[in-house]
């Protein structure tokens, strides 16, 4: 039997264990595809690279899914998955010397959910807040993406970022405060 620290590649598992793993992973994938895609999109700023990043995140998650389940002690695996996407996004910028594209490729996916009047009134404010978001440090921006786009609570964000709950609470508070100050100045 595998110890908690040992990772067994799915291809090396006995068929019954692999079938169970595949079923569990399929549920996991369906439950979190939108989370990973949203996170990736807000990190890289365009749909094309967000798709690549999402696929890579799930491939990597699949390879280590068995071990992650064993070590999670029943805790949700979403922070672990988002951490994988976070690491991939960091590599994406490091390897290609890219910065997040600003403004995002399009705010249309967001705007289409508003009625026409709301778009006219609120679109400029949305653009402004997105532009100011890019002024934040990477960790502050990420924390806000996790909170608002993914609906993660402080504890989940802390696990995804590898920080304490307290430090995460302070990080989010300061990120919102900075945004507030920058928007007040404009």
């Amino acid at each position: 039997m595998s110890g908690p620290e040992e990772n067994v590649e799915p291809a090396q598992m006995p068929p019954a264990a692999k079938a169970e793993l595949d079923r569990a992973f399929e549920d996991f994938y369906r439950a979190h595809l939108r989370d990973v895609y949203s996170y990736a999109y807000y990190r890289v700023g365009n749909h094309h690279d967000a798709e690549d990043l999402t696929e890579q995140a799930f491939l990597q998650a699949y390879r280590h899914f068995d071990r992650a389940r064993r070590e999670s002690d029943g805790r949700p695996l979403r922070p672990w998955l988002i951490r994988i996407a976070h690491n991939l996004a960091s590599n994406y910028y490091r390897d290609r010397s890219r910065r997040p594209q600003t403004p995002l490729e399009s705010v249309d996916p967001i705007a289409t959910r508003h009625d026409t009047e709301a778009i006219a009134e609120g679109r400029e404010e949305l653009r402004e807040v997105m532009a100011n978001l890019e002024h934040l440090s990477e960790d502050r921006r990420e924390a806000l993406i996790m909170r608002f786009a993914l609906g993660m609570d402080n504890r989940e964000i802390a696990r995804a970022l590898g920080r304490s709950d307290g430090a995460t609470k302070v990080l989010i508070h300061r990120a919102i405060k900075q945004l507030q100050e920058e928007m007040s100045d404009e």
Partner: protein
Amino acid sequence: MSEPSESLRDNWDVEKLLADALRPIEPPERLSGRIEDTFAAITQTAAEELSAWAEELSESELRALRDPRNWVRPVVAVSAGGIATGALVVLELRRRSKQKSESGLRALSSGVRSRL
């Protein structure tokens, strides 16, 4: 300096704006197809590797396999399956990358649809 009530109101506004601006993004349908294709290919290849290996065995080989001294071969075969799976994924990603660079997103999208 701002009054506390004004500060609280401003804070609420920024959070509301963030909630509006950072809505979850629905992944395109083609992405689900693309990822599911990749996992299907991984599963199928691993199964074929194991199946082909099992069919090659004669009765005497099966008997020999029960001898722990001969357990190196299955380990090697399974490892090879894992490597082949990895290679398949790399090839698939390279092929997609090439396809993207040659004809852009439209070609990629139609390519994925044609495989579904």
